[in-house]
């Protein structure tokens, strides 16, 4: 039995709450003066509203936006859906076409599939073998009836980065609304919605050290993309998102964004170095391959492939000692091989022999070394019982 806490290398699924954020949330939850509804005019309501607006400014700053352009949501899934469903449903009668890529997060894919059911046409771009969407391909997919282009900034499984600024420029020239899913990149890569010509940008707190259950959608002021809300009921959030605001969640999100912005460059350098140290350590389990290329990419993600290894058995070998993901935790209801890795050209078997190791601010060098040793031992143990020829067949 292992009793020590497992090494957590699943930051891309969700990052542990930063202790400063936890302190801010708990202070807020326990402050008798902050218990009101931020929509109420009385003193406790106004006090809550003041904290909400402070946080809105912190959240906005992380992506180079004005505070008034931030709409709070329950997470990145809601933000992505509000952007994609909202923009498409509010688009003019002859704007019935969308452009997106096959390697987007399930939130974007499933929202686009829903729009197909509603009569929209979707151009599903294939990514190159490096995993990124080619701006030239986006350009040639645009039509006079294109209502929206939706792309992720960085991929949640591979960390592969799309050239958002290039696509933004393109959409600006063609007058098409551009939505970016920045759930993985916010707080990890510099983002400037103005410079990148982004109309809508989705992100959430729990991937960057904030609480689960709160996210944001940046909605550009000018020109302001038309959006149909997902939920109705009163004028909250500029009429785009009804519902009482969760003060403590928003306060926590604000603190997390402020911390992330302050530490962005330092964190990125540190985490990137740790990831390379992990990769070096894994060489003792050769053959081992890296999925999704090397650079540029999100600093914290290392997606590796161990030929001859079955993912579920590898995970159970590590269970209780190393927490990692054989894919995106967000879609773990299914056990299908990753469509993201498939899009990189990997076979089903190769995808199943892969593991996503994602590091974060809290990761230490000692953890990385232990993780590498554990992985090498587990891979070697499983390989030792393979039938002859399996390593060659399963890669």
């Amino acid at each position, binding site marked *: 039995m292992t009793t020590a806490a497992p090494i957590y290398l699943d930051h891309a699924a969700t990052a542990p709450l930063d202790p400063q954020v936890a302190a801010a949330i708990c202070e807020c939850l326990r402050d008798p003066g902050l218990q009101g509804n931020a929509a109420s005019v009385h003193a406790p309501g106004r006090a809550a509203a003041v904290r909400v607006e402070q946080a809105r400014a912190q959240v906005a700053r992380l992506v180079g936006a004005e505070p008034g352009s931030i709409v709070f949501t329950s997470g990145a899934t809601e933000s992505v859906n509000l952007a994609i469903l909202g923009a498409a449903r509010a688009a003019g009668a002859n704007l019935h076409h969308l452009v997106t890529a096959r390697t987007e997060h399930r939130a974007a894919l499933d929202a686009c599939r829903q729009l197909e059911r509603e009569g929209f046409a979707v151009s599903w771009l294939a990514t190159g073998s490096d995993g990124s969407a080619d701006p030239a391909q986006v350009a040639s997919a645009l039509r006079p009836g294109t209502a929206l282009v939706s792309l992720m900034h960085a991929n949640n499984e591979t960390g592969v980065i799309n050239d958002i600024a290039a696509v933004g420029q393109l959409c600006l020239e063609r007058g098409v609304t551009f939505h970016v899913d920045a759930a993985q990149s916010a707080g990890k890569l510099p983002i400037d919605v103005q410079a990148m010509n982004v109309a809508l940008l989705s992100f959430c707190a729990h991937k960057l050290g904030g609480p689960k259950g709160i996210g944001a959608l940046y909605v550009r002021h000018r020109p302001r993309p038309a959006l149909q809300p997902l939920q109705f009921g009163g004028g909250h959030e500029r009429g785009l998102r009804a519902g009482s605001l969760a003060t403590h969640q928003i306060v926590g999100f604000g603190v997390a964004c402020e911390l992330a912005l302050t530490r962005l460059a330092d964190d990125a350098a540190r985490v990137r170095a740790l990831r390379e140290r992990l990769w070096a350590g894994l060489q003792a389990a050769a053959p081992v391959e890296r999925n999704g290329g090397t650079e540029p990419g999100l600093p914290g993600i290392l997606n590796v492939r161990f030929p001859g290894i079955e*993912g579920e058995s590898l995970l*159970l070998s590590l269970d209780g000692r190393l927490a990692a993901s*054989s894919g995106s935790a967000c879609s773990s209801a299914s*056990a299908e091989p990753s469509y993201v890795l498939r899009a990189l050209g990997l076979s089903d078997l190769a995808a199943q022999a892969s593991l996503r190791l994602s590091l974060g601010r809290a990761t230490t060098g000692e953890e990385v070394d232990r993780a590498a040793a554990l992985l090498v031992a587990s891979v070697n143990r499983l390989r*030792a019982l*393979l039938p002859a020829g*399996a390593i060659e067949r399963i890669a």
Partner: protein
Amino acid sequence: MTGTRAIYSQLVRELFERLPHAGDLGPGAGTAVHGEAMALDRGAWVRFDARIEDGRVVDCSFRAWGCPHTLAAAALIASRLHGEGIGNEAAFDALRLARELGAPAEKLGRLLVVEDALSGMLARAHALQ
């Protein structure tokens, strides 16, 4: 990709942790037989090896690629066969394995691969009689 939400039974966890009889047969007397089944698309590849002497399984081992249930099933079978008289072996079909291991329905396809490998080996063993 991502793992399944299956919670592994205590028996699966124990077998997986030790994987008794994994690897190759030790040196010894008797006639070697084996059975192998592979269905990469279903996610399993299993090979059993045994040494038969005087109608008894005097040694048994397995090699496998697959999920924890597949490996546990192979280890369970290899352990049970060990010392058993040919013809007396319990019926290790996939359904029975699934029940004993508490495996979810979607694992049946893989357990059938285990069953196939076993049947192949037992057929050879019976042929020796």
